[in-house]
C-alpha cells in the first residue's frame, strides 16, 4: 500500500512531510505501550497509537518505524510534529478508533508485526 492510499483509507491528515523515500507499506504494530514497541525484533512500517506525546515519535525513531498514526482524533502538538520532522517520520492523524483503523489496514492486506 502506498502512503497516499493509507491516508485516504483511514481518512487521515498528513501532518508533516518526512524526508524518507516513498515506500510500500506492508506491516503494522498497534500499541499504547511504547516499551512493547521497543521489544519488537522486526521493524513494522507503521505504528498506530492513541498516545499523542513526543515519546511515541522517539520510540518510532529508535525502533526504525517510518510511519506513525495517532488515532482517536487526539490533539497533536506542534512539538510532536516538529520532532517527527526531525526524525524523518511521517506523522498522520485520524479521527478513527485504533480498532477501526487497524481493521481497515487488516482488510487491505497490511500484516501484523509481533
Amino acid at each position, binding site marked *: 500500500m502506498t502512503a497516499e492510499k493509507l491516508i485516504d483509507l483511514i481518512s487521515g491528515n498528513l501532518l508533516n512531510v518526512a524526508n524518507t523515500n516513498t515506500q510500500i507499506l506492508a506491516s503494522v504494530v498497534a500499541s499504547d505501550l511504547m516499551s512493547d514497541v521497543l521489544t519488537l525484533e522486526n521493524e513494522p512500517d507503521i505504528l498506530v497509537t492513541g498516545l499523542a506525546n513526543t515519546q511515541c515519535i522517539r520510540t518510532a*525513531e529508535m525502533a526504525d518505524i517510518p510511519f506513525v498514526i495517532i488515532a482517536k482524533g487526539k490533539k497533536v502538538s506542534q512539538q510532536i510534529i516538529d520532532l517527527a520532522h526531525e526524525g524523518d517520520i511521517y506523522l498522520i492523524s485520524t479521527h478513527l478508533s485504533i480498532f477501526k483503523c487497524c481493521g481497515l489496514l487488516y482488510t487491505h492486506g497490511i500484516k501484523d508485526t509481533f
Partner: protein
Amino acid sequence: MSGITFSYKIDGGDFVNAGKASSEIKRTLKQLNVAQKTIKRVVVSLYEAEVNIVAHAHRGEINVLINAEEISITLKDEGPGIESVEQAMEVGYSTASPSVVSMGFGAGMGLPNMKKNSDYLNVESKVGVGTTVTIKVALVG
C-alpha cells in the same frame, strides 16, 4: 583506548527531551556507517536507559565512547536507586509512577530489553544515592 566521546546531561522528569541523547547517537552511528541492526540495538538500549533516568532519577549524565570495536555507554544518575537489581531485571517488575505509565512506559520491560539488546549490561545501585548502568554493544562481527 582512543575513540569519539559524547556527554549528555539529563534532567529527571523532563519527558519532553527524553530520547534526545539517543537520537543524536543514532545520527552519529548512521554517519559512521554502522550496520542498521547494530544501531537499533544500541539506540533501543540507550533510549530505555535514558527514559529510566527521566522516569526515576533527579538528574543524570550519559557518557558514550565509540571506538572501532564497540560502543560503550555509562549512565550515572542521582536518585532513589534500586532496592533489588535482581528484581528490577525481572520482566513485569516496575516501580514507575502513573505519570510515567501515561507516557507509554513503566511496564517493567526496560532493563530486560536493555539486556536483550546489548552484549554487556551492568547495573550498580545504592538506595538513596543513585544508579550507574553500563551498556556495551560490539561494533564488529
